[in-house]
């Protein structure tokens, strides 16, 4: 085997030596290709595995943790929720529409492979600066691609996040999450079994799409090929919809033994996975695989990443019946092999044995690296900045001359595309198809009811709360704390909707693992994520690692996106974030404001107003967080809460403003935090120093939820908080029309709403 070919397959010399040892001979081209994809970072998790092992993955609620296509969690009433998040960053950077679309297709397959019916999609998106020349094209393409796929499938896209940050200028992030529901006893695994059972292929025909190292493959095998083949895959949601319906119909019966979708590394990965997990062998004939193109080589057939394909083992004797079912759905399907004894996958093509793949060594003996780790140098420089003293105090000498500086700052923050309404995005997503969406995008978490067609006929009053969160700026400044906050915020969002946080999925987007600084970020982030998931009892049940998110300008901010699912015992008791009635009392839970914290490090305020990313992110105390969440949830259960919204980017002022205008009808708020000793101990201008005013308004202090309650319930709520040892303070009252914050801000809500509603579109166009 020529060293050039080995290198083109992304294998190191040592890895190749390892292959020689395993095989006891030189591999064939097919075998080399298989090793190369199976041992790629993407499939083998070779750099991340040692850290992933330490994550909390267990809990009473967990039916199936990481290792399968998606995590499975018990929600009672005989039902489980099945979910996972996955990245499609690089394909989306090259071709935003198709990249994002096929990302959605892939995550959907991961969920319905397990026998679950997908009921909701979420997406977590990161683009470069809003005014970067590429951003408009990228966001338009990505959003249209997600919409194109999800809408056509008829799965509502109900939540997500969108951030803009310079570090993503050359490498955007597109993470898609899918949530499905199944009857608890009807979960399917990727495990072959039963010697002699048929192995069946169904779905789109196989073409040359996305073949790993496609350029090289065609150089070697296709002399004189005219135009260089694009490696981009085109999504076909229509076929996927048929595959989904057909597979669920099939899995409703008793004929399927084990099933695996064809994702990365296509047939290779699915056959090895099925055989490996079942401790059996598989014999398959590539000549039987439905092909879209002529003269495809076994190498290409094994490595093709054509979309919308599934691979499964069925019970012997059911072949005819199964093929007939697929015919009803107009799908291509074929019996391509059978389960055999032993632990090898034998690959035949036109009567010839073209590859012998030993499953155990390929899947279990994949390389595992403990890469060098080093705390990056940038951190000290940025962390040591005393944000308040250095940026805010001097700047606000000027600010003080302005008569109403704080109102204008608030407007600027609300216009920032990171805070502004994401309606421009989610209005392109069908978020209501399936008629299960009780809370549509625009509140802290989406809430889904579970009606019978989606539960396999089982009745339940329960609902699901869904969210995804990650502030990567915090993670950049302190990966451990940032990751903790991401988990805490996700759980808090669920609590605000009335759900009890249940379990977590993640999508870990980082730079190159070969960079010790990145590996350090990774290790720290995983520590934080693990600790937080443990403390909040939201074990990690599935996830995905995406390394090599870099451009010539450097690595992206570490971005461990958290997807979380919570459960509501009675879905009709859900809560939304906006104020409901004039006269309701506004209370802050989690903070009594006795001491205003200067926690402006890494804040949106610092970025938007001072163009700085510096300092330390806000502190997080997981015990306090848990107390807060328990208190809020109990208050909701007692029916005390009219609205609940967590304080995140933009701090208290932004959370208050959002509660005013994000509902169907805008209302105002009058906050009186008793200007004086409590809020501003040292009484300067505005009763305090500008730094204190700004901290009060815009600090992103964690573990705080803004709620509104009927006047008659205030005492009950405060008593409950006290009993739970959760700090709290009455902020003011819901009024009509105006946003009034002590003597600091007074503006018509309509003005704030305009900034917020149009901020995103204005920023990207």
């Amino acid at each position, binding site marked *: 085997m020529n060293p050039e070919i080995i290198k083109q397959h992304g294998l190191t010399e040592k890895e190749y030596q390892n292959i020689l040892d395993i095989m006891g001979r030189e591999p064939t081209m097919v075998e080399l290709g298989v090793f190369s994809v199976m041992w790629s970072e993407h499939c083998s998790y070779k750099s991340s595995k040692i850290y992933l092992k330490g994550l909390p993955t267990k809990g009473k609620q967990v039916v199936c943790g990481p290792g399968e296509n998606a995590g499975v969690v018990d929600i009672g009433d005989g039902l489980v929720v099945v979910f996972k998040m996955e990245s499609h960053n690089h394909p989306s950077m090259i071709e935003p529409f198709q990249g994002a679309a096929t990302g959605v297709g892939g995550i959907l397959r991961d969920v319905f492979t397990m026998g679950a019916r997908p009921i909701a999609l979420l997406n977590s998106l990161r683009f470069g600066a809003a005014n970067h020349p590429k951003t408009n094209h990228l966001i338009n393409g990505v959003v*249209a691609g997600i919409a194109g796929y999800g809408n056509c499938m008829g799965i509502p896209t109900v939540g997500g996040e969108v951030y803009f940050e310079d570090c993503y200028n050359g490498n955007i992030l597109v993470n898609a999450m899918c949530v499905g529901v199944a009857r608890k006893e009807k979960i399917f695994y990727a495990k072959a079994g039963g010697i002699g059972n048929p192995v069946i292929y169904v779905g789109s025909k196989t073409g040359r799409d996305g073949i790993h190292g496609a350029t090289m493959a065609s150089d070697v095998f296709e002399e004189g090929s005219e135009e260089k083949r694009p490696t981009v895959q085109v999504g076909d949601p229509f076929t996927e919809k048929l595959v989904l319906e057909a597979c669920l119909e099939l899995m409703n019966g008793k004929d399927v033994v084990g099933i695996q979708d064809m994702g990365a590394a296509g047939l290779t990965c699915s056959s090895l996975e099925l055989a490996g997990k079942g401790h059996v062998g598989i014999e398959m004939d590539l000549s039987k695989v439905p092909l879209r193109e002529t003269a495809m080589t076994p190498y290409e057939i094994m490595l093709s990443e054509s979309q919308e394909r599934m691979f499964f083992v069925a019970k012997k004797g059911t072949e005819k019946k199964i093929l007939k079912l697929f015919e009803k759905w107009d799908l291509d399907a074929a019996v391509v092999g059978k389960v055999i004894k032993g632990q090898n996958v034998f690959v035949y093509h036109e009567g010839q044995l073209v590859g012998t793949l030993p499953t155990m060594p390929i899947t279990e003996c994949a390389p595992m690296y403990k890469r060098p780790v080093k705390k990056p140098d940038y951190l000290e420089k940025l962390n040591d900045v005393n944000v308040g003293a250095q940026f805010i105090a001097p700047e606000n000498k000027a600010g003080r001359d302005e008569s109403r500086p704080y109102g204008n700052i608030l407007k600027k923050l609300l216009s920032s595309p990171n805070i502004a309404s994401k309606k421009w995005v989610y209005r392109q997503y069908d978020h209501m*198809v399936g008629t299960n969406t009780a809370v549509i995008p625009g509140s802290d978490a989406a809430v889904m009811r579970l009606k019978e067609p989606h539960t396999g006929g089982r009745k339940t009053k329960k609902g699901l709360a869904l969210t995804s969160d990650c502030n990567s700026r915090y993670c950049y400044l302190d990966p451990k704390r940032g990751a903790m906050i991401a988990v805490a915020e996700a759980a808090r969002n669920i609590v605000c909707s009335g759900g009890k946080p249940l379990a977590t999925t993640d999508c870990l987007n980082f730079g190159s693992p070969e960079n010790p600084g990145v590996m350090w970020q990774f290790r720290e982030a995983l520590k934080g994520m693990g600790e937080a998931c443990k403390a909040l009892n939201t074990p990690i049940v599935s996830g995905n690692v995406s390394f090599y998110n870099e451009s010539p300008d450097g690595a992206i901010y570490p971005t461990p996106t958290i997807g979380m699912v919570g459960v509501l015992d009675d879905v*009709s008791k859900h809560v939304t974030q906006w104020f409901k009635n004039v006269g309701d009392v506004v209370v802050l839970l989690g903070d009594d404001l006795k001491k205003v914290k200067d926690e402006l490090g890494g804040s949106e305020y610092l970025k938007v107003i001072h163009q700085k990313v510096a300092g330390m992110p806000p502190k997080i105390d997981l015990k306090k967080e848990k107390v807060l969440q328990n208190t809020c949830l109990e208050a909701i259960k007692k029916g005390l809460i009219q609205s609940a919204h967590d304080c995140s980017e933009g701090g208290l002022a932004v959370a208050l403003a959002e509660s005013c205008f994000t509902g169907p009808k805008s209302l105002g708020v009058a906050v009186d935090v008793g200007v004086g000793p409590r809020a501003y101990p040292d009484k300067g201008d505005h009763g305090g120093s500008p730094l204190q005013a700004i901290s009060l308004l815009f600090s992103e202090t964690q573990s705080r939820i803004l709620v509104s309650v009927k006047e008659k319930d205030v005492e009950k709520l405060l008593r409950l908080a006290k009993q739970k040892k959760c700090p709290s303070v009455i902020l003011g009252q819901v009024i009509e029309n105006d946003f009034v914050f002590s003597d600091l801000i007074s503006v018509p809500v309509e003005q704030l709403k305009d900034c917020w509603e149009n901020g995103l579109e204005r920023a990207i166009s």
Partner: protein
Amino acid sequence: MKFGIITFPGSNCDWDCYHVVTNVLKQKAQFIWHKEAKLPKVDVVVIPGGFSYGDYLRTGAVARFSPVMQEVIRFAGSGGKVIGICNGFQVLTESGLLPGVLMRNTGLKFVCENTPLQVVNNHSQFSKKFDLKQNVMILIAHGEGNYFADNETLKRLEGEGQVVFRYLKNPNGSLNDIAGIINDRGNILGMMPHPERCMESILSNEAREDGKKVFESLL
């Protein structure tokens, strides 16, 4: 009353329609597979929303040739009641059961949001439970809902009172703000907004049930 709900490959609001008919209206419903060459005995045929055949080439263009559509055409011809919602409306125009055509939204984007409509005809079989000029809020979710017809057709539709729903804030460029029409005989309704999604107060933050009356008018 019995509703027959057509399922094409790519239909995705078939279950939603089934749910409201059986659980909200407490009527009977039955799915009808697109390959059926014969309609079962039903009182109303519903052509639901979705992306029949992926909406490839043109929305509704391929579905119209499904075997079951010949039967639906016959059923409608003998006075049977037919409702096409969203993709169903597109299928109805493509098959010639309703005049005009639904083109790409002028904004070129898919739009999903609650949209205010006005009921401009309340004597049709599908709208008699509404008040005339009543404003209702019904969700739209489509990329190709821009209603177009030539001048003559448009005049006829307006003259004969065949326009049933009009957008109050035109979301897609439809001529005359048309959101839903009936045929000249009054037994076929096509509308882009989704009444079946606005029949249960638990959905969608706004607690409205404005879509109910479309179905209730038929009972």
